């Protein structure tokens, strides 16, 4: 009897959607589970060495980087968001979108640009030396350090916090802030007593993105010689040739990430009450005058110069030095590769994201929640480790499919999946599921459940409800999710390096090859093309937002 009820219950929940999304989830999860299985695999001697000599230092290194970058990026992001939303000052309108542009610059490109610029032969010291005969004593500018890494990561990741906090403040804060202003709260008191507390969920959401980016960063930390968990994974792999121990480390990193997810969920448990469909009236900004206005403009300008103008102008200068040598026909091919790879992967991600968010919404049980969180955990894991998981799974599939290959003329014992673009795309999908998923989830959160329920009551099936009710309401979120994910994939590096098929080169890969070979000037032109693509994408997001708020 009981069994039967369970079965009926299960059957009720198992509609087509659930089955499809579970299958999708399984495909994405296999490589992740493969890496996680490192936890239970027996440890070898290397692992003992890693644990004994390296682990503490690396954990401390990662913690330092996460804490400092998290703190500074959040502070800068929130303060800037509040400035452009709460006040008017010269150039304010322009800053509301210009301060998003640093997202277009991959942090590793910024890292080598700044490092070279501040070096002995770099623009700054060379100018001082040659024009003014000022010799800076060596070691004054130390960018290649933990401090330098925090500096770079803060400058190029703060827009995540800025973007989310700004959106929140624009749309949801007017009532609170205007009341607070009426009650006599001013400037600092208003910021600390009202703005900060009410925007907590938005701040946490932005902070999360920053934390995950920092944890998975390899490019900046490696270039600056900062020891983190992420670099430890590679050191174990590259200098000990011990992929198993490297995966064990990565698995532990994944556990930490899932822990953070759960914590975030816990912190946000009351957030549902905050969101409402009702369009709040936008906040009317207060004009700033005199020194305050100047200060606000100056602060925004300094951040914008450091996080966008200076590195981009420097790259343009270098590109002009190497233009003739570097401007070859294959740059167009690289650009097309970057674009098409990212576009296809993003498309797949959004389909999966739509399916799985919907499943969670209808099932709303903890296994479904855990499943989707596992699907998005790839965001915080260094790309190369995901790549190993994907490689392992694809080669295994190739072995299983060998008889089929033989019968369709590919040839028995050939690697087909793992030598095709499929493998690279799978890597992208797993790594960046989170960006697409979160955008769609946020979109769904804004649609009251009653809409879908009403549609179902009125006789619409699950699919019909989706296409007729939910999809139109989700359109904005889908486009934003698409562009955000697209930008991430265009900038992606380690997965591209490891999983690409023969002769498939992208802008990011080309840039990196020059950079690690200490040929920074040659790297400038592909870097600029890459930034250009991201730049256009960021502009698209901004345009969509503008239309939404109108």
């Amino acid at each position, binding site marked *: 009897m009981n069994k039967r009820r369970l079965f009926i219950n299960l059957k009720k929940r198992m*509609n*087509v959607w659930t089955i*499809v999304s579970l299958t999708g989830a399984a495909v994405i999860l296999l490589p992740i589970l493969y890496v996680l299985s490192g936890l239970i695999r027996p440890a070898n001697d290397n692992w003992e060495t890693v644990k004994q000599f390296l682990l503490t230092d690396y954990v401390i290194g990662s913690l330092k980087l996460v804490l400092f970058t998290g703190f500074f990026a959040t502070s800068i992001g929130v303060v800037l968001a509040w400035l452009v939303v709460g006040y008017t000052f010269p150039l304010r309108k322009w800053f509301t979108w210009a301060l998003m542009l640093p997202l277009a610059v991959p942090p590793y490109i910024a890292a080598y640009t700044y*490092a070279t610029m501040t*070096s*002995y*032969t770099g623009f700054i010291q*060379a100018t001082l030396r040659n024009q003014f005969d000022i*010799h800076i*004593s*060596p*070691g004054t500018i130390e960018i290649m350090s933990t401090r330098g890494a925090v500096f770079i990561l803060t400058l190029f990741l703060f827009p995540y916090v800025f973007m989310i906090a700004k959106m929140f403040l624009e749309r949801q804060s007017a009532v609170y802030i205007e009341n607070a202003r009426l009650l006599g709260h001013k400037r600092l008191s208003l910021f600390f007593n009202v703005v900060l507390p009410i925007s907590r969920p938005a701040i946490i959401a932005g902070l999360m993105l920053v934390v995950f980016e920092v944890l998975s960063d390899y490019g900046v930390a490696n270039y*600056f*010689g900062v020891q983190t968990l992420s670099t430890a994974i590679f050191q174990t*792999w*590259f*200098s000990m*040739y011990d*992929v198993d121990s490297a995966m064990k480390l990565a698995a532990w990193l994944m556990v930490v990430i899932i822990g953070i997810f759960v914590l975030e969920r816990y912190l946000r448990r009351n957030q549902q009450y905050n969101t409402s469909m009702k369009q709040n009236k936008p906040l009317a900004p207060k004009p700033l005058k005199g020194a305050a206005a100047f200060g606000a403009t100056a602060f925004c300008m300094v951040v914008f110069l450091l996080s966008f103008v200076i590195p981009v102008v420097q790259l343009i200068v270098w590109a002009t*030095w190497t233009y003739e040598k570097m401007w070859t026909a294959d740059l167009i091919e690289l650009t*097309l*590769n970057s674009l098409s*790879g990212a576009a*296809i992967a993003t*498309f797949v991600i959004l*389909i999966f994201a739509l399916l799985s968010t919907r499943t969670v919404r209808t099932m709303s049980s903890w296994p479904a929640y855990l499943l989707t969180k596992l699907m998005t955990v790839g965001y915080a894991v260094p790309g190369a480790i995901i790549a190993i998981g994907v490689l*392992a799974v694809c*080669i295994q599939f*190739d072995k299983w499919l060998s008889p089929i290959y033989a019968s369709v*003329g*590919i*040839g028995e*014992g*050939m*690697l*087909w999946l*793992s*030598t*095709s*673009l*499929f493998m690279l*795309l799978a890597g992208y999908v797993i790594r960046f599921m989170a960006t697409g998923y979160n955008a769609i989830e946020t979109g769904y959160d804004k649609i009251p459940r009653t809409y879908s329920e009403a549609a179902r009551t009125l006789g619409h*099936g*699950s*699919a019909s409800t989706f296409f007729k009710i939910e999809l139109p309401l989700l359109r904005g979120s889908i486009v934003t999710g698409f562009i955000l994910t697209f930008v991430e994939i265009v900038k992606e590096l380690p997965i591209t*390096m*490891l999983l*690409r*098929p*023969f*002769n*498939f*080169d992208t802008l990011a*890969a080309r840039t990196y*090859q*020059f950079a690690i*070979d*200490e040929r920074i*000037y*040659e790297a400038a032109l592909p870097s600029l093309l890459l930034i250009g693509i991201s730049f256009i994408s960021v502009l698209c997001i901004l345009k969509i937002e503008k239309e939404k708020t109108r």
Partner: protein
Amino acid sequence: MKKRNFKKSVMLLTIVMIMTLLAGCVGGNKSTAPDAGQAAKEPATKASNEVNIYTARHYDVDAELYAKFTEQTGIKVNVIEGKAPELIERLKREGASTPADLFITVDGGILNTAKTADLLQPIQSAAIDAQVPADMRDKDSHWVGLSTRARVIVYAKDRVNPSQLSTYEDLATDKWKGKLLVRSSTNLYNQSLLASLISLNGEAEAEKWAAGIAANLARDPEGGDRDQAKAVVAGTGDVAIMNTYYVGRMTVSDDPEEVKVAEKIGVFFPNQQTTGTHLNISGAGLVKHSKNKENALKLIEFLTAKEAQTAVSKANFEFPVNKEAEMPELLKSWGTFKHQGLDFAVYGELNPKAAEIANKVGWK
């Protein structure tokens, strides 16, 4: 009844959607990278006119040489670039099914790692043997050297007299306290140097040496080899350890400031009276499960012939392995030098020991 039909059709639709999606991925493969698709399929279907390379050596001149090779022989060269350990891992996992024919990388130790991981097979070619001296090849012919570089001492011309310089060992004495610059010991160039000294002087002496180097550093190791040269000119320290080709590349840099740096440093080949200067090698290994072995051999022959060797040396300031090849003026001006003459396999065999010693003595 009607509802059930609807459900069925939705199910069908979803399946079709997923199929098209998958097809889209694969189709995308064809449209965006036609070469890739071919590369994957052709080796099995016919004795192809292709050769597939996994390479960790990223020289522009390599791409030019491959193009020239294709022009001469009609054999198409397909390339996957990556880091050596990643490519080795890929080769291991692909096993007998691997599409790769050649594995090209820098550092004798890595070539040896690939060999001991049973990923390579002997290269049998009289032409190659004639072009590459025996000490620039693996003793079991599993790989062949393509070019070499020396790890030398560079010094500030205005502050250091070359007569003060003698050996690597001398750099670890108190004489150079606070004046020495070298990059991190996590870098392979330093690990191989340390491995060679373990082999020549014994573990205890090598450990003492590494401790001396760590103690003499003018600053915590940072940046690459070029950064050490810049720091010498900036006055952070007086002497640095770096690879020869970086000096060459700086002389032709697009940045006039780097050219100035290159002009202000002198190059010194250490240990000429004793064990010789440390030499490292870039080379090509023939993959054990190569499907286009003939083509792979032809490519190695081409890459070790005089023309290609001259081109690499000219573009990259490395020493050619083929004695007939011509070197750029700068390399000629350094003259001939005595090198350690070790079996490059030693770098790989002693690499773990070297890394361990560096960690132990605190050479970051």
